[in-house]
């Protein structure tokens, strides 16, 4: 069922609001629709206007306890909501997801591992394209060449915090990137590589590969590549991929058993 129709139906059935998109000056922007203005919801979703919808939803739920909302989700949004639910940041029982599959152009330009949510209301499922080659290229370099590459990239950072601000998974009240003991105040570029490695390690087992960080970066630093590499490490060494299922626990969030670290069993 087209998403607008479904949204209208859900609002009639008593949902408090639906987080979707409307067009403002030719651009799609997120908007919380009520029964009064549901007609203004956009019926089409051009691919490259993307927002961290799960971040908005988390704030809406926090500021309005008990509210029941529908939300238009892409594959990445669903992964983010699953991970946030596991970390106690959203309540999935009070959310109705309206699934939107990404179109072919977006799938090719974004390159995420699953460009469609588990339940699709609108859009055709398009298979994921293999992700970037930059990780392979970097792995083939010598360590000192790799270091020079990353130091050059990090040296462009203007400390705008765009990557952190747009990330659906960033919700710490006291951010490590603003801790004076870790990151010196008033220094640009920020101490490399600590600034970016703090983020990279915080993304271990949590990054759902939406790519908004790299899109937000005004200096074009290949952040997504870095966080993808961290995700690969977690998947290979600890057998966990974020956003896969609500039941699966992140090994970095729990103590775990002996078998998780290669022993015979507790």
């Amino acid at each position, binding site marked *: 069922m087209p998403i607008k129709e479904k949204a209208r139906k859900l609002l009639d059935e008593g949902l408090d609001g639906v987080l979707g998109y409307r067009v403002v000056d030719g651009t799609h922007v997120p908007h919380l629709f009520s029964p009064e203005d549901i007609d203004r919801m956009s019926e089409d979703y051009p691919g490259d206007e993307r927002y961290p919808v799960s971040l908005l939803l988390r704030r809406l739920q926090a500021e309005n306890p008990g509210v029941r909302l529908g939300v238009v989700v892409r594959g990445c949004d669903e992964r983010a909501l699953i991970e946030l639910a596991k970390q106690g940041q959203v309540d999935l029982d009070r959310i109705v997801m309206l699934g939107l599959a990404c179109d072919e152009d977006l799938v090719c330009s974004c390159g995420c591992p699953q460009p469609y949510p588990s339940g699709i209301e609108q859009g055709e499922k398009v298979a994921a394209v293999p992700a970037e*080659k*930059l990780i*392979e*290229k*970097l*792995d*083939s*370099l010598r*360590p*000192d*060449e*790799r*270091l*020079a*590459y*990353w*130091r*050059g990239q*990090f*040296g462009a950072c203007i400390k705008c915090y765009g990557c952190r601000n747009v990330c659906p998974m960033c919700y710490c009240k006291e951010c*490590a990137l603003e801790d004076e*003991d*870790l990151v010196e105040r008033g220094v640009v*570029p920020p*101490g*490399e*590589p*600590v600034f970016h*490695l*703090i983020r*990279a*390690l915080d993304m*271990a087992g949590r990054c759902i590969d939406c790519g908004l960080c790299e899109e937000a970066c005004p200096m074009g630093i290949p952040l997504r590549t*870095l966080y993808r*590499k*961290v995700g690969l*490490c*977690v998947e290979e*060494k*600890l057998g966990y991929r974020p956003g896969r299922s609500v039941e699966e626990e992140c*090994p*970095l969030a729990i*103590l*775990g058993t*002996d078998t*998780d*670290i290669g*022993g015979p069993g507790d």
Partner: protein
Amino acid sequence: MPEKQTKKKDEVKILAFLCNWCSYAGADLAGVSRIQYPPNVVDIRVMCTGTISPYHVLKAFQLGIDGVLIAGCHIGDCHYMKGNYMTYKRFQVIRDVMKFIGIDEERLRLEWISAAEGEKFAGVVRSFTEQVAHAGPSPLRTGWDSSAESRERIREMFKQLESLEPVT
């Protein structure tokens, strides 16, 4: 004393995080038993290696430390039951990320050393000091070279990377 500090400036600097119950006690035993080991290590006592944040390890390298050693209780012997499980898992990620950035994984080591293993502690410090000395002073000791020549060199490298074929 100023003279000794000048001589030590070019030597290897290692930071060791030792857990209070096992490794720190093991280090104490090495000391009490007069077992000789290189003086390049500075110890930091933590209650459990599970409390070591990856941020601390990163910051150590940022500040110019050449090598970081983390030593805790053997698996199954942690004073807090499973603190060292967290250490083990976190360490995998820290090591792989640093390797990807280009910082030699030889500069990082995780060992399980019990309170009775004074000789083992000394042996680990000896071998790790040699390993880190072989890797050389940390490349992060010098700030990023933002001169025009360096930037040109890096620009060339970016261009080369663009044209490289991926490894099959």
